[in-house]
């Protein structure tokens, strides 16, 4: 065991045992961040904060929520909303944060794509980030089910039915996931467990991994400039702050993050107090009824694009059932982002505006995702169905041409 001297203060006592000074340096004051980054890089801190809000508001909701199909609806809509002091506030904070967290995740993700932050050396950052997106999606969906309203029920119905598309074991798998022949009490209780325990703890683990993946390759910057972080850090520590390309995370960089966070929180609480209903579907204020489907069902806004890819294929293609084509396209949409680091064949890391064709590709992708999102909410009939079909096809094509697009850019620059 190490030798311990008599400590002169509580800080010193702790420092001897936990080495807080070094920890603080590594994590905060000597964790180096490039100077050349804009407000889009603050999304990580925004996400961490929003996740914190979700956990805390969730704990308060959990104290009154009842995961039982006979009680769930009233425990939310009566007990929490009417009786519990500030219950309405916790519910709206939770509901709005669940929606806004996806907005920030998408901004975070597309910032990464725009600046090439998923490339060479940063693949693990990207992969752990996409895993977070997937677990957040699962958490969002399982939480949406808990109030046991009509939309909850039928969302659960549709999503669990999707597993029926798995070859051979599909039907048995659906019954197994639900724990009943139908979406029923067993389903609600197990989704409650997933939502309040297994998924949050998984998310926390992956957040830890995501932060760690940043440590070795370091964070990207606006010009995707590569430099030696150790050298720049030395300059900074020697007092050459102006010349150094880096600043310490704490307290210099975080101040900018916190300013962005301040603006975000004003926006967030504006939504919580004045527009909480955007995260609440009116159909979900009807109690679940397994004998009546709402006329038109659709997921929350953040799933609309992949939902539209799923249902965009509404006719059989080359003898393959429309249902299967849709499922395959849906599976494609959900894993393809994960493969981005390998689909991009450009050897250099550059922001999109320095890669002319990729720049166009990027904005077409944005436009396509917006079209998919808008049409995902509209009833899939007549021209809507066709717009959905072409947008879904465009989405798939975009990813198929990405290796070619990035190669052409690299060739033109003379890099290949």
């Amino acid at each position, binding site marked *: 065991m190490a030798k311990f001297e008599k400590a002169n203060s509580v800080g010193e006592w702790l420092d001897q045992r936990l080495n807080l000074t070094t920890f603080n340096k590594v994590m905060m004051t000597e964790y180096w961040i490039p100077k050349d980054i804009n407000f889009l890089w603050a999304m990580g801190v925004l996400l961490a904060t929003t996740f914190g809000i979700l956990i805390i508001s969730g704990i308060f909701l959990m104290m009154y929520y009842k995961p039982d199909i006979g009680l769930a609806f009233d425990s939310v809509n009566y007990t929490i909303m009417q009786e519990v002091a500030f219950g309405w506030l916790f519910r709206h904070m939770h509901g709005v944060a669940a929606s806004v967290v996806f907005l920030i995740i998408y901004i975070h993700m597309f910032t990464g794509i725009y600046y090439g932050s998923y490339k060479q050396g940063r693949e693990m950052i990207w992969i752990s980030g996409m895993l977070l997106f997937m677990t957040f999606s699962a958490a969002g969906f399982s939480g949406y089910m808990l109030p046991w309203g009509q939309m909850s029920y*039928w969302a659960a*119905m*549709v999503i669990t*039915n*999707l597993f029926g598309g798995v070859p051979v074991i599909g039907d048995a798998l659906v*019954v*197994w*996931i*639900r*724990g*009943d*022949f*139908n*979406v*029923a009490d*067993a389903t609600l209780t*197990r989704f409650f467990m997933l939502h309040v325990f297994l998924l949050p703890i998984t998310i926390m683990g992956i957040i830890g991994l995501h932060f760690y993946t940043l440590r070795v390759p370091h964070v990207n910057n606006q010009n995707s400039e590569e430099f030696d972080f150790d050298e720049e850090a030395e300059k900074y520590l020697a007092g050459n702050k102006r010349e150094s390309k880096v600043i310490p995370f704490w307290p210099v960089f975080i101040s900018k993050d916190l300013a962005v966070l301040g603006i975000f929180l004003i926006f967030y609480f504006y939504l919580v107090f004045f527009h909480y209903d955007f995260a609440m579907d009116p159909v979900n204020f009807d109690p679940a009824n*397994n*004998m*009546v*489907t709402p*006329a*038109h*069902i659709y997921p929350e806004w953040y799933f609309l694009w992949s939902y539209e890819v799923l*249902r965009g*294929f*509404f*006719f059989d293609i080359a003898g393959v*059932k*429309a*249902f*299967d084509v*849709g499922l395959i396209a849906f599976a494609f949409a959900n894993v393809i982002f994960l493969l981005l680091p390998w689909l991009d064949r450009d050897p250099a890391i550059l922001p999109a505006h320095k890669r002319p064709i990729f720049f166009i590709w990027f904005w077409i992708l944005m436009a396509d995702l917006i079209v998919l999102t808008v049409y995902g909410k509209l009833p*899939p*009939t007549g021209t809507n*169905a066709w717009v959905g079909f072409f947008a879904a096809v465009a989405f798939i094509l975009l990813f198929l041409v990405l290796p070619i697009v990035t190669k052409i850019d690299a060739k033109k620059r003379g890099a290949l």
Partner: protein
Amino acid sequence: MSNKTNRRDFLGYSFAAVAAVGGAASLVGMKQAWDPLPSVLSGGFTTVDLAPIKAGTPETFVWRGKPVFVLKKSAEMDKSERDLIIGEDRFIVAIGLCTHLGCIPAWKDSMWKCACHGGEYNSSAKQTFGPPPRPLDVPPFKVDGTKLVLGETGPEYNAISAFVATQA
């Protein structure tokens, strides 16, 4: 190689064997914990009396928490090998969940229309339009006089489900 290394290897392999058996057993246990409970499985029977059903408009019954459509065909409706013939009457018995993603289609004029993604089924429960990949499923049933016992299987069910399987 020294004796020591061999002993370490042996310890490692024994642990791996114990862990593998324990791990496999836990997986089986965890899988079964998620299976439907015995009470859910045993509650799976519903009896439907066909006598009072009027021709031309389907009725919906609940079986295992799912809607089951029973349509007594009127004279002008197409005959199909799927029909359950009892005396003079022809019936269509089908699970009322769209085979696309599980919404409940509604009876309009002379077909079931699914509001979710526009799927359509004719009066013989065969898909005629939209994304549904196959006809409405047949619930297992047994005929008992003019009664239908949902959840058991009889010869009529076997014949009809064999026919439906060719229709996908």
